[in-house]
């Protein structure tokens, strides 16, 4: 089934969906069936009054036919359709659905995402002994004590001619073990109670931090002032309602400490001036401030939206490709779970440590979008002299209207990428059912 990208295809789809004959539609709008056929196969351009007439006949908006539904919505619907195996929604008419029932389509997508999140929560909870080492250790402690108590009690109760010395010894063991049991049981109850008000949607400390970053758009005004210090960070963490536990707090603190150090090295106003003076060249900005290129890329993404300044996205990953910091950008989907597209300059940078990479990339879709990506991979400061280097790649993303240089076709993730013949493909696409 074709992925409909073109107006003609949409017209045809819509007409077929309504069960209308080509000849009837042609007559209704005053063209020959042969001409309509050419339009439907994208062999004739269409616009103006004819498009309006066709839209009216097909009970839709002209814009709907010429632009299609929001690509994000369509992608979301395809994703939702793919996850559910028992049913077979009309994937070939997904744009029609998204266009005609936008609200319902958004509901399907939102529910699909929620299901995915909840499934992860269920998975984590149902095998909690594996996922939660603290719980496993506490239970093991309880069972060990119960075992000792049961076995010792049986000896005391069943051994008729027990030696008084042994008897005393076993009584003492019993008392010892029951004290241990009551404190470990108490600890277990406290632990389980504390766990019950966890936020269900975020299943790990990293998710908590991602939510914090996303909410703030990776811009933290309290850390932008002069003479702010770690005290502000502590206050922010205090106020942040999304951090579940110590682990999340520590992760968030690390992220904010780094933000603060970037902000101190490159104060907002000076940084903006430097960017505009260098024509947005991160290398020259880095040189000017005497900081690493990765710090400049992070700082660029942290700027609040302003006149004449593109909104920027940010992705940071470690040497395994795991995303450790993300600021989403409209039109450049960052997969929440699972791996992203290996062609991202981010990963190219990982393969070429310290070599800055600047690339114009294209995200596929009905309306393919261009982005300028700048990435660099640098080793993180080593903890000891002979420790293996830990690399970290940083990529800043900004939307681009047009490009005067080669464009690298990329995607979000193989599953939702239509680039069938891509050399980097690792799994089939759910869009790969084309005729």
């Amino acid at each position: 089934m074709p992925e409909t990208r073109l107006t003609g295809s949409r017209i045809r789809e819509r007409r077929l969906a309504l069960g209308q004959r080509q000849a009837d539609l042609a007559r209704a709008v005053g063209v020959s069936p042969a001409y309509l056929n050419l339009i439907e196969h994208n062999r004739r351009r269409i616009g103006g009054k004819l498009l309006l007439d066709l839209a009216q006949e097909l009970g839709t908006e002209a814009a709907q036919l010429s632009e299609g539904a929001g690509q994000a919505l369509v992608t979301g619907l395809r994703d939702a359709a793919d996850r559910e195996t028992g049913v077979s929604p009309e994937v070939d008419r997904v744009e029609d659905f998204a266009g005609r029932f936008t609200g319902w389509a958004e509901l399907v997508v939102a529910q699909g995402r929620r299901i995915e999140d909840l499934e992860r929560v269920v998975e984590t909870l149902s095998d909690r002994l594996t996922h939660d080492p603290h719980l496993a250790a506490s239970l093991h402690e309880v069972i060990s004590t119960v075992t000792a108590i049961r076995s010792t009690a049986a000896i005391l109760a069943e051994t008729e001619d027990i030696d008084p010395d042994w008897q005393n010894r076993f009584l003492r063991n019993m008392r010892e073990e029951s004290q241990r049991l009551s404190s470990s049981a108490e600890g277990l109850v406290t632990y389980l109670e504390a766990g019950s008000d966890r936020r269900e949607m975020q299943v790990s400390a990293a998710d908590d931090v991602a939510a914090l970053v996303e909410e703030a758009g990776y811009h933290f005004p309290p850390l932008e002032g002069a003479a702010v210090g770690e005290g502000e960070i502590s206050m922010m963490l205090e106020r942040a309602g999304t951090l579940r536990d110590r682990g999340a707090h520590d992760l968030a603190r690390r992220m904010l400490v780094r933000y603060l150090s970037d902000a101190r090295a490159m104060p907002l106003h000076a940084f903006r001036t430097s960017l505009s003076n260098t024509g947005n060249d991160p290398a020259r900005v880095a040189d000017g401030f005497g900081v690493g290129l990765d710090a400049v890329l992070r700082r660029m993404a942290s700027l609040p939206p302003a006149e004449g300044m593109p909104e920027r996205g940010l992705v940071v990953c470690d040497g395994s490709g795991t995303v450790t910091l993300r600021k989403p950008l409209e039109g450049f989907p960052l997969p929440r779970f699972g791996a992203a597209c290996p062609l991202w300059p981010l990963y190219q940078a990982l393969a070429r440590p310290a070599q800055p990479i600047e690339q114009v990339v294209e995200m596929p879709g009905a309306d393919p979008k261009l982005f300028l990506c700048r990435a660099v991979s640098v080793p993180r400061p080593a903890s000891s002299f002979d420790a293996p280097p830990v690399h970290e790649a940083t990529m800043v993303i900004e939307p681009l209207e047009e490009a005067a240089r080669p464009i690298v076709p990329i995607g979000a993730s193989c599953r939702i990428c239509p680039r069938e013949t891509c050399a980097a493909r690792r799994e089939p696409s759910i869009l790969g059912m084309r005729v």
Partner: protein
Amino acid sequence: MGKQVLLIEDEPNIIEAISFILSRDGWSVATHANGETAMDAVHRHAPDALVLDVMLPGRSGYDILQDLRADPATSDIPVLMLTARGQKKDREVADRLGATRFMTKPFSNAEVLTVLREITGGT
């Protein structure tokens, strides 16, 4: 003189209780509490049967079982595995690695005695 059993377990009060009931049942009992040095203890005592806890400091009971079965000198020793987790998965691992029997904590004393007699073919 009774048969010898080696108990590899790290909880002192469980060691004491099991040693007591086994001795009264006529066994000669040796105990060992560390996973890392457990193989040495097995070679030293050459017991007729082994009671082996899964969760041990230093080394897991499963690893020890694997070594036991791989070594011709110890591959035939009957082994009763003890674990705090009665999950199917654990039982499968124990079976695959060649445990003679598998018992979950908490166990009854009588059960331990019965099983030990069974796996050593004794009375």
